[in-house]
């Protein structure tokens, strides 16, 4: 604890174990997440990603091992951890009956911030939701809901943000909107821990990737480091075909309606 907060990792996990009855979900998980940037926890369904995020966000107690977030131990200093984080769960953590703006004001009030209305309006603007701000969230599309969800997580500028499968169930366009939001976050110095089962998502977004498999981290590194784990690539010449995603986005006209102007390549 003598080390200044800027030097120690944003997230520090050692020997984390968790079982549900006889099912051993986490079997000794170790990883560190440096400050700033996006860290992806990659794994298939049931690998234990959500369990790990729940423990780190103080929603669940570990059976063994230690974990600290922003220098605070999740087991002994949960209140300090909660001051340091925001969680965007697997299912959009928004209130459907309230409007988008009311959702943001609600979180700002619960974080005891001044001028909640002003904070809400700024975030609506930043996430291109100003026009939808007065509408009930129940009328939002999946992508809008996720953007609102992420906007709610930014209130109070917590240094660490957990995004549990942020793009599961989203269409390709909404997925790109979310990716952009995550990228912007990381660019501003927030530490983002993201769980995903999509390889391309981890590849596209993450500065470091840890692969969680059967309750253990089996690989951890930057994308080039992970690629070096395999034999060197063989050079082959293949005709570049557009992927179905390229086609889909081209014909529906991804014209920057979501605020991503300048991507009309």
């Amino acid at each position, binding site marked *: 604890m003598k080390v200044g907060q800027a030097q120690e990792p944003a997230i520090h996990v050692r020997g984390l174990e968790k079982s549900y009855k006889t099912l051993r979900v986490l079997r000794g998980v170790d990883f560190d997440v440096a400050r700033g940037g996006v860290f992806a926890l990659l794994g298939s369904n049931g690998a234990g990603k959500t369990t790990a995020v729940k423990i780190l966000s103080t929603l669940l107690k570990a059976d063994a091992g230690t974990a600290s977030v922003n220098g605070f131990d999740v087991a002994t200093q949960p209140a300090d951890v909660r001051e340091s984080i925001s969680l965007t769960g697997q299912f959009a*953590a928004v209130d459907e*009956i309230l409007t988008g703006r009311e959702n943001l004001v609600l979180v700002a009030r619960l974080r*005891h911030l001044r001028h909640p209305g002003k904070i809400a309006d700024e975030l609506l603007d930043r996430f291109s939701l100003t026009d939808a701000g007065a509408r009930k969230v129940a009328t939002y599309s999946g992508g809008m809901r996720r953007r609102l969800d992420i906007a709610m997580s930014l209130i109070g500028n917590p240094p660490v943000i957990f995004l549990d499968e942020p793009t599961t169930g989203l269409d390709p366009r909404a997925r790109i909107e979310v990716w952009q939001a995550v990228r912007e976050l990381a660019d501003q110095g927030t530490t983002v821990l993201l769980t995903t089962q999509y390889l391309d998502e981890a590849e596209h977004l993450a500065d470091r990737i840890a692969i969680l498999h059967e309750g253990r981290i089996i690989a951890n590194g930057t994308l080039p480091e992970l690629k070096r784990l395999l034999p060197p690539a063989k050079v082959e010449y293949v005709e570049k075909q557009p992927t179905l995603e390229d086609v889909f986005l081209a014909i529906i006209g991804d014209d920057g309606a979501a605020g991503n102007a300048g991507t009309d390549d």
Partner: protein
Amino acid sequence: MTTHFFGDTAVLLGRSGRHITRSLDTVITVSIMPIALMLLFVYVFGGAIDAGSDHYVNYLLPGILLITIAMGISYTAFRLFTDMRSGIFARFQSMPIARSSVLWAHVLTSVVSNLISLVIVVLVALLMGFRSGAGVLAWLAVAGILVLFTLALTWIAVIAGLSAKTVDGASAFSYPIVFLPFVSSAFVPTDTMPGPVRAFAENQPVTSIVNTIRDLFAQRPVSGDVWIGLAWCAGILIVACALAMVTYHRKIT
């Protein structure tokens, strides 16, 4: 964190308040079944029931009010259950707020929405000829007893809402509670009931509460029933609240 308890609870109460005003149908649905029962008993069965009262609706209303509350709390369980299922609950729990305020906001919302339903039912009863010469103090006493009864049942609803696995499970627990007033002095005097039924009816919470409210409305001095009724409410409240807290803490850790 406890320093923010009242502020956080107020903010969350404001949220649930919006839920109620935006789904007023729930408050109305809660009132419809007791009103239908009241119509049925006053205009269909009432003529054949000798309750020894001037107007049967005067005799009936206290029991109908308790049924209204029993109906209303199933929505409390429903609202809590939906919150738990959606990600918003996890978000609240991972935020630096007083954790119990999430639960208290639901409890207070339950009291407010039940009071609205009760007012609707009393207004319909007035249209049907319910009259009481009770003064302000007596009305306040009635309101106090009803709020206490609502709180006691709400904590039962909280247990159901927290531990249910399905939406149906979250609201089905209230059926036996809705049924209790039928085997009490709410609809007919207990002295016509056969022995064991009568023994049950006279010794379950609804009868003493109904008798007390009836006495208050009729401007009669309240009997010892008031203490039995209050003791039942307080007892249920304490036990259910403790169990709900245990369930809640097990749920969030």
